């Protein structure tokens, strides 16, 4: 049956995109962006038949990387948005290894200049490092490349066995 409404058409459109080889997101410097990134990553990995537990971990890790880009890269500490800021880009790809195992590589790039958290000296300052702790626990490898032009974080997932055919 053909899609009957705008929403149906959008869903149809999303489904056809979901199994694409790569994930490409351009996100506003806006606190709504992490939820968009989580949703899109979840659908993309599900289309690639990633196991739910691995999907949850990658969603957690990506959320932290995107949140860091918004908070630290651009200094947005309260839920608001910065229309003048360069967007945060997310690129995801599935890498097939020589033995058929696969892993996901997620790259999060912002153009902000890193700044220290505004309340780093508050009583909760000690819990500020949770984002990095979560990323390290949820993926195999976290690489952070910070330059004057911005920060690029690469999250490499643990390898999973080839999909059953």
């Amino acid at each position, binding site marked *: 049956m053909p899609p009957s409404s705008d929403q149906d058409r959008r869903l149809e459109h999303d489904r056809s995109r979901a199994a694409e080889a790569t994930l490409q997101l351009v996100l506003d410097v806006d*606190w*709504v962006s*992490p*939820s968009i990134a*989580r949703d899109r990553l979840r659908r993309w990995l599900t289309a690639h038949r990633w196991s739910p*537990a691995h999907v*949850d*971990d990658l*969603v*957690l890790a990506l*959320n*932290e990387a995107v*949140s860091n880009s*918004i*908070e630290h890269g651009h200094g947005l500490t*309260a*839920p*608001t948005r910065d229309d003048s800021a360069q967007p945060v880009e997310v690129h995801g790809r599935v890498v097939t290894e020589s033995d058929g195992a696969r892993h996901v590589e997620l790259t999060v790039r912002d153009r902000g200049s890193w700044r220290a958290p505004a309340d780093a000296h508050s*009583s*909760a300052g000690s*819990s*500020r490092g*949770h*984002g990095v*702790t*979560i990323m390290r*626990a*949820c993926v195999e490898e976290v690489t952070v490349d910070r330059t004057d032009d911005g920060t690029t974080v690469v999250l490499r997932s643990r390898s999973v066995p080839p999909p059953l055919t």
Partner: protein
Amino acid sequence: MKPASDERTPDGGEYLAARPDREQLLSVRSTDRDDAVVLTVEGDVDGLTAPRLGTALASAFNRLGGRLLVVDLSRVVFLGSSGLRTLHESALVAAREHDLDQLRIVVDHTRPVIRPIEIVGLDQVLALFNTVSDALAAGDLR
């Protein structure tokens, strides 16, 4: 629907009025009992919504008296570092101004909420329960 007082945002909620879609990510419902204030949290707790949870927690602490504060996270589907920070801060408030034993957290001991709590070690700080009735029924933990 008129928002509950504990669902106001720190900045007065203007951005929510302008972009109502954001409101749907998280709901926080507050229930006052003789023995406890129960916050029922549902949805995603992330950088966008954690301030709203923080406001609800502060409001609950303010009227707590000697009662328990039970935070039911069993219907939370996503908990990121912003939410963990909010929970950690509430534990610090409880320890400083009340009694750490008064704060009780209800979590489904399956993913996705217990996983981030355990990763950062908050399970060693927070009193965790499987159900609201367990949290209410548990006696003095000290």
